[in-house]
């Protein structure tokens, strides 16, 4: 019952240098992820070699152990011949019945715990008011409630610029202010014209529109910085700022879904936007690291 230790019986497995080498390999991988890819490969090789040696030692020690009790085993086998008695049957049926009852009860509970976060998440479009409020070439900081029924917690900000019309189609650059590093709010690097602030009454909320003169956008949390097209210029963000789809309905600018952007080439109405489905902050959309996020929750809807 009680653990006995320190007597003549040796450790199993015996102390060896293999775990140390394995740890060095892992450390090499972790350091390599930051520093360089060759170091990662070297780390993997070291870890696999030492891990294999360690596992071989551990298994060899395990194989030697049960030599003594193995001799006693056959005697018990002869006393109990193979059979399927009633008590085994009752034991199995009791366990099975218990399992069925547990499943019947727990499946809906677990479903209720997890599924509501993933279903019925459609957000309605946001009406930003008449398009006259967005003069050509000027940045407007628009603050609105993405879901008015939820109140202040759904407050969101977008930077809107009307780029003029290109071959009869109006062009808007509408950038979400959420930093794509970890989701803090970015603000325009430049003056805000608070005196010219407008409030627009729409269906069941008030939208505030403030003219701004940004040289770019910057985030207070970890120093992420972007240019006016949302491309990263400094700091930890992994892609360009997210943008909003838009529609013009009865002369009013209406925001649609957000989408993610790898990078923007060119600017204004002629910008070439490398767009992707919406992903969370900090998630790569392009390059090798983009493969880390093969499916998003909204893909399953």
């Amino acid at each position, binding site marked *: 019952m*009680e*653990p*006995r*230790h*320190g007597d003549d019986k040796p*450790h199993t497995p015996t102390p060896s240098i293999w775990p140390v080498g394995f740890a060095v390999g892992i450390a090499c991988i972790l350091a390599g992820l930051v520093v360089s890819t060759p170091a990662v490969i070297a780390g993997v090789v070291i870890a696999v070699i030492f891990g294999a040696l360690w596992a071989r030692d551990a298994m060899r020690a395990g194989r030697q152990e049960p030599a003594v009790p193995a001799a006693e085993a056959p005697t018990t086998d002869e006393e109990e011949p193979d059979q399927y008695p009633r008590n085994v049957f009752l034991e199995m049926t009791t366990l099975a019945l218990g399992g069925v009852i547990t499943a019947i009860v727990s499946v809906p509970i677990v479903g209720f715990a*997890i599924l*509501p*976060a*993933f279903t019925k*998440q459609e*957000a309605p479009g946001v009406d930003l008011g008449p398009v006259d409020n967005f003069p050509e070439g000027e940045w407007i900081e628009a603050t609105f409630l*993405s*879901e008015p029924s*939820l*109140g*202040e*917690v*759904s407050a969101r900000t977008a930077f809107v610029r009307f780029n003029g019309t290109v071959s009869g189609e109006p062009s808007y650059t509408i950038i979400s202010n959420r930093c794509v590093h*970890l*989701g*803090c*709010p970015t603000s325009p690097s430049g003056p805000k014209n608070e005196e010219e602030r407008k409030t627009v009454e729409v269906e069941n909320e008030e939208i505030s529109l403030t003219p701004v003169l940004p040289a770019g956008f910057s985030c207070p*949390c970890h120093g992420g910085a972007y240019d006016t097209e949302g491309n990263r210029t400094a700091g930890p963000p992994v892609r360009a700022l997210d943008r909003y789809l838009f529609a013009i309905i009865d002369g009013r600018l209406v925001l649609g879904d957000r989408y993610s952007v790898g990078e923007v080439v060119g600017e204004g109405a002629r910008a070439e936007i490398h767009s992707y489905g919406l*992903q*969370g*902050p*900090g*998630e790569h959309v392009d390059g090798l690291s983009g493969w*880390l*996020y*093969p*499916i*998003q*929750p*909204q893909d399953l809807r």
Partner: protein
Amino acid sequence: MATEYTHPPIPPPSRKKRRLTDKLAPFVTVPLNWIDERSAIVRGTKYFLFRKVPSDTNWFHTLGSATLTAFLVQAGTGVILAFYYRPTPDEAYDSIKSITHEVTLGWLVRGMHKWGASVFIILLFLHMARVFLFGAYKYPRELNWIIGFTLLILGMLQGFTGYLLPWDQTAYWATVVGINLNGTGPVLGPFLAQFLRGGDEIGPNTLTIFYAMHMLLLPGAIAGLILLHLYLVVRLGVSSPPWSPERAGAPRVDEEPRGPGLVRPRARGRFAR
């Protein structure tokens, strides 16, 4: 080797005192015996409390109990804070303000809970450092190290979920960042973040989910694991420090008769007879 140390003889209690204690003793022993005869609870408590420990344990060995105490303080103050806290986006911040400024002694209990949270985490790490540096995680106590590590993770989750509840700007943005950090995990990260938010965006559900986790799910799990942790401490015994002349992990000899009172007969410490 430590030299044999004999305690000076303990003088017998005075006659007057003995008479009084003799008279009062039944008031304690009779009900206790009544309970013990039917439940073995008193015996069980004695078995749990009056264990043999190495004679050269020191103050560092108290860090585990200190962590437990910090957890109990958090549990107690947390339950009382739940009397007055309202986990909705409209009311959460106002209820925190009212607890701090209006409810009698609310500032004290909230302060204990807030600062106690840091004390709990700090003690967890100190206890972990003691176990690591004393080598107390080694055979046969590896499993207890793993349980302790799980407790550390759950304790930090308590910190993460509790931080949102005041629902001020710090709480909100710290949680945005924290959830998005989880979201950057490969493949499953976005799903974890979605689950923690309770939807696409942080909102009323996030607050109630964090509240339920903070005061039901996580404390329940922590309490259960603490019981398991203590069970293994009692079963495996307390390890002696690395510099101890006693052999680490020496088997506990159950046949050995218990000494008078709570004392073990062959102890080398100051309580030896």
